[in-house]
């Protein structure tokens, strides 16, 4: 019974001595793509690996001084690898006038059509997800998450804007095109549900004018796993 407790002497010096002459890395005949002595990935058996993602969410376009937009949107993302994903998203906006705009319209006679508003927009994005991590919550449970960068191409439907005395109706309904750099955070609730927060700067161009609202969105995502 006590001999269980001895460590195998075969682990002893013999093997080390025999391997002295060359500093050749030991590699098994078969094994995972990355082998023991090769450079290893930081995380093995990654718990949260997503493939298809469906999302719904709310958001806000908070920086326009004349109106605040609230978004209701959804989308789909295909996570090609742990590092890269492509995504399609669309959002409908509810715009609310600010006090400043009310003043301008009511006290200074500015026409409502002077102020451009985004009605809805759609985007195609590429996501780069270099940071994956875990945090200890109260030393009891773990919160897994990732940080990613996004680059999007956007098409938006705008209304109003640039009304003048000669063109009192403004530019009316029109399409705007542009791009949106940004970043996002995802926190995993469980293996199939996650919450993501996206921060994107929409750079839109429409009929000679630029519109640069900031979009903050919070989405609930349902995901399928790539390893199942």
């Amino acid at each position, binding site marked *: 019974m006590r001999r269980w407790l001895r460590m195998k002497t075969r682990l002893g010096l013999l093997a*080390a001595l025999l391997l002295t002459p060359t500093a*050749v890395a030991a590699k098994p005949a078969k094994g995972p793509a990355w082998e023991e002595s090769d450079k290893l990935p930081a995380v093995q058996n990654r718990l949260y690996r997503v493939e298809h993602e469906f999302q719904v969410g709310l958001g806000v376009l908070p920086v326009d001084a004349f109106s605040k937009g609230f978004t209701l949107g959804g989308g789909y993302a295909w996570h090609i690898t742990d590092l890269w994903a492509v995504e399609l998203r669309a959002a409908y906006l509810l715009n609310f006038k600010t006090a400043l705009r009310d003043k301008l319209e009511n006290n200074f006679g500015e026409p409502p059509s002077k102020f451009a508003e985004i009605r809805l927009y759609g985007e195609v994005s590429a996501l780069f997800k270099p940071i994956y991590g875990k945090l200890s919550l109260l030393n009891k449970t773990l919160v897994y998450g990732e940080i990613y960068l996004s680059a999007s191409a956007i098409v938006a439907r705008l209304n109003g804007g640039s009304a003048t005395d000669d063109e009192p109706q403004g530019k009316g309904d029109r399409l705007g095109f542009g791009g949106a750099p940004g970043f996002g955070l995802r926190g995993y609730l469980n293996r199939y549900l996650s919450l993501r927060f996206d921060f994107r700067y929409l750079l839109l161009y429409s009929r000679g004018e630029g519109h640069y609202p900031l979009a903050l969105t919070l989405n609930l995502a349902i995901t399928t796993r790539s390893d199942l």
Partner: protein
Amino acid sequence: MVRIAMLLALGLSLLAAPARAADPPPKPAAAPAPKADAPKPEAAKPEAPEKMMSENAAAKLFARAKDAFGRNRFAEAATLCWRFLQRNKPGVEKYESAQFFLASSLEKLGFIHASVEYYYQVANNRQSPELLPRALRQLEAISLAHPFDEGMVLRDLLGDTDFGELPGDLSDFAYYWQAMTNLERKLEGWSTERFLKISRKGYYFYTALYVNAIRLLASPKGDARKEALTAFAELFGALDLGSALDSLRRRGEADSKLAYALRALVTDEGAIQLRLDKLPKGWEIELAMLGLARVAAETDALLTRAKETDEEALGLPLAYSVAIGGMPIYTRAIPFEDRGGAIRAVAARFAGVRAIRGKSLHSLSRLLYEQKQYAAAYNTLGAIPKNTELSSEILLERAWSKYRSGDPHRAMGLLYALDAPVYKALFAPEKYVLRGLIYRRFCHFRAAKLAARRFRVEYAKTLRAIREGEALEEVDKVREAALRRAPALKVHLFARSLRQERAALDKYEDEWGGGKGLRAHLRHLYLQKLEQTKADLGRALEISAKEVAEDMLDAEEQVNLLEYEDGQAIFQRLSESASLSQARKRAAKVPVSSERVYYKFGGEYWTDELPSYKFNIEDRCVD
């Protein structure tokens, strides 16, 4: 200890000689070798020479080859060199140079074995003495970085050839392998003589010191003991031996076994003088540990400094402190005049020195474990530099050390780390045994039984195959484990690189094509070597597979015993302690906030955390 010594004796007899067909009759290494008329390996000869070239045409062809090489057009340079060799006889001017450039081009293109064949030709023939050191240097670099034909290069070429004076540290490369060849042939005296010619700095010195520390364990008696002690004492050096002895005396440890062992090697005046009758019992372990600790300490100091080798940095004070398992032995400063050379020598083969430091610490930890110094063994294992030794072995050995030193929580944590995907191919049946022991230690008898069952699930098929007498090399798990062990490992790696290089020849079908083209020649060369290596691998596998099978049967026996004793223990606990059901110790409580952050294990293995896992388990045993 006897067991270690026996294993080491076996190890030294097999030293770096992976399954050769037959040993030549012993003769001292480095006997004068024939020069120009030396037989060349058949494979490296150009096939039937085509029409000979005129001297002028040959010179032009060589110049074109050299020019292509200079422009980094290695495939073209190889073609031209090959054409030169085919159309000229050995002995013509530039013949060896063409072989050298062919070897260099092939090396640059990744055909390591083919390049070794041609460097071998140049170094063995030595018709152009100026090419010898260059060829040897390339062979040395290859020997430190790639699997290669060790039999041909290290024993046939280096071991059996007297090269005379070689520039710089190249002579150390030759002396080291001559010493090792002699040691393998049991020519102890010749081996010692060659070891002592190695200069006292750099990779080959530390490797020689490492080998001679181990040699002490394998040579407990007779002339072999005397030679081993002579080599060890001389390599270790009178100053270091004296420093160690003085230091022990100053600390009042003059009566320790190590101090007695040192007194048998060095006089009070600090001169080396062997007094074999004064050696205490267990001297070989004490001195081997000291030797290994010295290699680890000195290489550590030098590796740190070798990252900066400008003149100012070289001049700064440098000392190393030798400690065995955390117990300080002595400190010695490297004199100013030796400092620069020592640091530069280490910087020249940084990876090799780092690897030998890893091996020294690993071997030292094993000796400490055998000496029942478990905490010291654990700490020493933790100091092994990353990516020098197999991390799975380190984890397993740390787990055993922790278990034996009375910390089963950490031991189990380390065993869990061994379940990481990267260790999927690890053959370690004893991890189930240790896991079962730890569960039983906490009276988790079902879990202990489950560990035994997991062993059976993992190895049932293999054990059945072993019992049914299947050829061991054909049993998957046995074969895989055997391929990771000496002596099969090296041959396996060499065979694998031969296959990869041979496959890569297809990329050069157009450039090197044709019936008598370079590609056909190299394919033939690789095929021949593969056939030879296959036979070598078969022999090596036979030895390794037998060891693996024995280990597996041994582990099964231990698992059987574990299961039986678990069954016994369950009843014993119930009957003896039915009225005393007070739990001994609850699992440690995790605080909401503390200086230590707790990450609960969820099946995801963060590579940096593998050595830090701790198993928080409730002790269900009752007093």
